[in-house]
């Protein structure tokens, strides 16, 4: 019973933290980019205000759309919330680790993407179709690269269970700087950029419908549906950043619910994610958007990096 209660508390804290931190990460990236462009930029809390504004706005549903259009925002957001429970954030033993491992996460991402693409098509506008087709063709290369990167760490830890991966890494100090991890980290970072629709793959700040990928799929959404989708895509970014931070550097994670370790855990998490967010902003600023047909080449780099990591691990061993 106590076991259950503590799991409940831990997962409640985790989901609340993820929900609250999500718009902040987005705000940090936007602010960093603005400063780098000599602009003052909006406050880092602007995404909260945007979301609350969207929640209050009227929802307009295209007359040509079906139920798919309406359930998509819920499916996508629910998938992200579920994943948020499965990734390591502040607690080393991930609250719901018995429920699903890395493979579950990958499939949940796929499910969300599937519905998002359907939702884009369902509205019947030309841009939605354009975005969906681009998203799916990029996904077909992103997913293998992502699996390979994630499996490299799974192989080093001997399990696909994220709790075990994180625990192994935090207890065996040497493996933090294992060369294969560096390569896998680089691979997963590129995947993060592609998966979350950042430059140089997709431009989240563009107004040009013809160049959009993710934004084109959600072009017909408005009001709270749009808020859900925005929140989901922002959360996806946070999930990836958490994976990057904690799979490769699980420093400072809480192993119990004692107040001190909780505080340290939260602080370490926020610090790591903020650093990664700034790195993402730097990458976005330093690069122009790639020509669409060059994106597969970039993702091949991620794939090869992960593959090399795996080979390196099997040669050097732990």
């Amino acid at each position, binding site marked *: 019973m106590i076991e259950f209660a503590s799991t409940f508390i831990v997962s409640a804290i985790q989901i609340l933290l993820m929900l609250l931190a999500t718009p902040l990460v987005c705000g940090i990236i936007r602010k960093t980019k603005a400063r780098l*462009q000599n602009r003052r930029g909006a406050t880092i809390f602007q995404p909260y205000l945007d979301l609350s504004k969207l929640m209050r706005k009227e929802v307009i549903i295209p007359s040509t759309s079906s139920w798919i259009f309406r359930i998509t925002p819920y499916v996508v957001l629910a998938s992200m919330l579920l994943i948020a429970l499965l990734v390591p954030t502040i607690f080393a033993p991930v609250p719901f680790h018995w429920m699903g491992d890395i493979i579950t996460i990958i499939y949940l991402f796929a499910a969300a993407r599937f519905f998002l693409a359907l939702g884009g098509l369902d509205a019947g506008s030309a841009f939605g179709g354009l975005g969906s087709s681009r998203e799916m063709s990029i996904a077909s290369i992103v997913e293998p690269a992502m699996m390979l990167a994630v499996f490299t760490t799974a192989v080093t830890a001997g399990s696909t269970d994220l709790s075990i991966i994180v625990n192994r890494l935090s207890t065996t100090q040497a493996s933090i700087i294992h060369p294969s991890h560096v390569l896998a980290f680089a691979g997963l970072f590129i995947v993060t950029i592609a998966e979350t629709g950042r430059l140089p793959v997709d431009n989240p700040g563009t107004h040009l419908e013809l160049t959009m990928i993710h934004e084109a799929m959600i072009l017909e959404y408005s009001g709270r549906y749009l808020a859900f989708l925005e929140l989901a895509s922002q959360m996806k970014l946070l999930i990836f950043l958490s994976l990057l931070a904690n799979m490769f550097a699980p420093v400072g994670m809480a192993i119990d619910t004692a107040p001190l370790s909780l505080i340290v855990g939260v602080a370490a998490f926020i610090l790591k994610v903020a650093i990664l967010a700034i790195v993402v902003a730097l990458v976005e*600023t330093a690069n122009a958007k790639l*020509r669409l047909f060059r994106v597969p080449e970039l993702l091949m780099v991620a794939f090869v990096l992960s593959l090399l990591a795996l080979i390196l691990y099997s040669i050097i061993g732990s």
Partner: protein
Amino acid sequence: MKQKYIQLLRTTWGNIFTEEITPVANELYLTLESGALSKLPEICSVLVKALKAHFVMLLANDERELHGKFFIYYVFSMTADNLFLILRVPVDAREREVPSITASLDSATWFEREVQDWFGIVPFPNIGKLAVHPDWPEDVYPMVKEFDLKRSVRRVKGSFDFKHVAGEGVFEIPVGPVHAGVIEPGHFRFSVAGEPIVNLDVQLFYAHKGTEKIAEGMNPHRAVFLAERISGDSSFSHAVAFCHAIERTQQIEIPQRALVIRTALLELERISNHIGDIGGVLLDVGFSIAASRAFYLKEKFMHLNEILTGSRLLRGMAAIGGVRRHIEDTLAKREAMQETLKDGQEAFEELVDLLMSSSTVLDRLESTGVLAHKDAYRLGIIGIAGRASGIDRDLRRDHPHCAYPYLKFHSVLCNEGDVFARVNVRIDEVRESFRLLEQLRRQHVDEPIKATLQSPAPDRCALGYFEGWRGEIVHWVMIGKDGNIFRWKITDPSFHNWRGLKLAVRHNIVPDFPVINKSFNLSYSGNDR
């Protein structure tokens, strides 16, 4: 020199031309006999092919109250002799038909279609509507004299007739006329096979303001303000082109100082627009750090415009006979000019370095949106887009006025015809503009800046032209018996170049369209007037 061309034409076709007397030194008006109408396509073809004439524009004029006929003016530029040869072709008021010259001169296509839509003069073979939308009734022609501006026209049912591409996997993407961002209205219809664009159709004339019609009967001095509003980004160029036309009809001698001020402002307009365009291209490829630098720099020059003239768009400066105000009459203005030019030049070179050192940017720009030289030549593409495709034409050099005859500068030329070439032409032109402004730096505030004007002589017509930042702007004005405007024809370079854009995007992928479009940066307002 005029006699040379008259002789040349008469030896080939006999005495079918009558020379119209004009006081304008470099304009030769030749009226074709009504009986020789069928020879028109052949004459135009020979002019272009054998005599290396450049087709500038054609325009119709409702001269029924003067001569009982319509006339169409075919304007050619003879670059070698700094001469404009204008064929004046009579059109019967009842039949309203004229042979089309597009078989040998593709660049005249849109002009002929516009004449058909606005005057009801049908070039045969006949092609579809261009300048009026399908809901405009068939038999209403807005530019004929009896069309009353106050009249409301009842719209009819009609739908756009786009070119459809059939085939497996070919889809149509409609974009516009309302776009995201602050962009003028225009409807684009892409036919795509996957990502590659198979065909692009453009429906324009949403921004038609009837400028040419409104101006009829207007005092030329008032029309200067209208000219400033033809295309906002070329306010001063259009105003100067219009003033130039009026000045030529009246043989007005412009004070030297006014010519210098005009030249300086025209180059400032070029600099701020070119830098803005470079920023736009960088923004469209997502290289925001360089883009924001470019916009910052553009803003600096817009601000300088405001300090010098009181208007960021250089409005209210042009006047018939000169300019309205001095631009360097106070120390503050001179300092602002000097500082902005010095800092601007440095910042611009830094921006160019940043652009050239980014491999991802170069990868996006090179070989994107290629407009081949032969296509550019066939379509009569001019200005920056033309010079990026190896069309060596620059009115500042070929038909110079203002202070250009005394100034040293190069006309920039590239041959690749891609987005990168169009950016490069802009970069080098900005450098040339800086050089030009250096040469103009001297202050004589006591000199006159405006000629003293007589009451206008009636019944005169002339061209006014200038190489604006986008390309050559050509106006043609006819002053009526009352000294007011009888007919004003405006040709913005966009009107030539839209067809080039349509061709340049073919076989490119859809997400590259915005950057190709930006590299042309055509004006909707100037095109639609």
